[in-house]
């Protein structure tokens, strides 16, 4: 009985300590998206390159694709840009840019100077599409399956490591299931 009196608080304290310790290494800025596993919000927006030519999410159905949210005002976007170029060079999936609350001219200059990794760039001047996608801090990168379901979301600059570990296997898996259905 005396032993229990010491062991129980000790165990409780250890458990609490373990929770707090793990908490130290978790990033509070990372907010898991409730949209993963749900249909991607549809959008039809003017294209950055040609405002007369709208970009519609419906046209992308039937293949896996990536949506990358960026802006010229966003430091992390500059940081990941070379990685995006390298990924685009793989030609694994189309990368669609969502130019979030940006200046049209600045965004076009950015792509002209740094290179354009995007198959197409949709211009979200008002930021409403970004809100529909639950975006809170650029850069954010979504992976969308051929059926239009959001498979994964990466918040923070894209790296080759994340691409190889989180995106590529999911793209292959999505292709495999889509292939077996048809």
């Amino acid at each position, binding site marked *: 009985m005396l032993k229990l009196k010491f062991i129980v608080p000790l165990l409780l304290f250890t458990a609490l300590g373990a929770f707090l310790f793990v908490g130290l290494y978790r990033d509070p*800025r990372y*907010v*898991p998206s409730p949209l993963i596993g749900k249909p991607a919000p549809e959008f039809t927006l003017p294209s950055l390159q040609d405002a007369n030519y709208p970009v519609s999410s419906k046209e992308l159905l039937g293949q896996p694709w990536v949506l990358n949210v960026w802006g010229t005002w966003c430091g992390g976007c500059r940081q990941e840009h070379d990685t995006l170029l390298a990924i685009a060079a793989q030609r694994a999936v189309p990368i669609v840019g969502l130019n979030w609350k940006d200046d049209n001219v600045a965004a076009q200059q950015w792509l002209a100077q740094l290179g354009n990794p995007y198959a197409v760039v949709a211009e979200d001047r008002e930021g*409403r599409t970004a*809100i529909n996608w*639950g975006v*809170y*801090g650029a850069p954010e990168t979504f992976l969308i399956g051929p059926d239009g379901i959001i498979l994964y979301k990466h918040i923070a600059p894209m790296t080759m490591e994340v691409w190889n570990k989180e995106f590529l296997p999911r793209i292959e898996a999505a292709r495999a299931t889509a292939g077996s259905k048809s």
Partner: protein
Amino acid sequence: MSRYLRAGLVALLLAVGGQALAIDTEAAFDDPVLQHRYEAINRELRCLVCQNQTIADSNATLAQDLRREVRDMIAAGKTDDEIRDFMIERYGDFVLYRPRMTAQNFLLWAAPALLLLIAAVVLFRVVRRRAQESDIEADGPEAGQS
């Protein structure tokens, strides 16, 4: 610090603090009822880029955009619950400053009641044991004398 200086500082802080509440440059609604609803909802929604602020407190671009969404939804006749659901669908429960009770966080909600119950049981047992012990002590010397 003199008493007057301190009083002056308090008055200044109150004045500045009062202004900080009205972050929009102008009222969103002419109707005071709608304006009140608008402000109340804003105070319940977290600005996700500046996580320890509500969208009523923050002037981050995202907070401005979310306030615009709230304003538009109120204007479109949406209820408070519908507006909250709109935000939760996109940003998850973390967007709420007053979290809902869900299966995942039920234990957290129940924890205060549970802890209080445990404390009551422990207290009851300790008090009862002490009472028994003091009875024995009181009886002790008499038993020794006889």
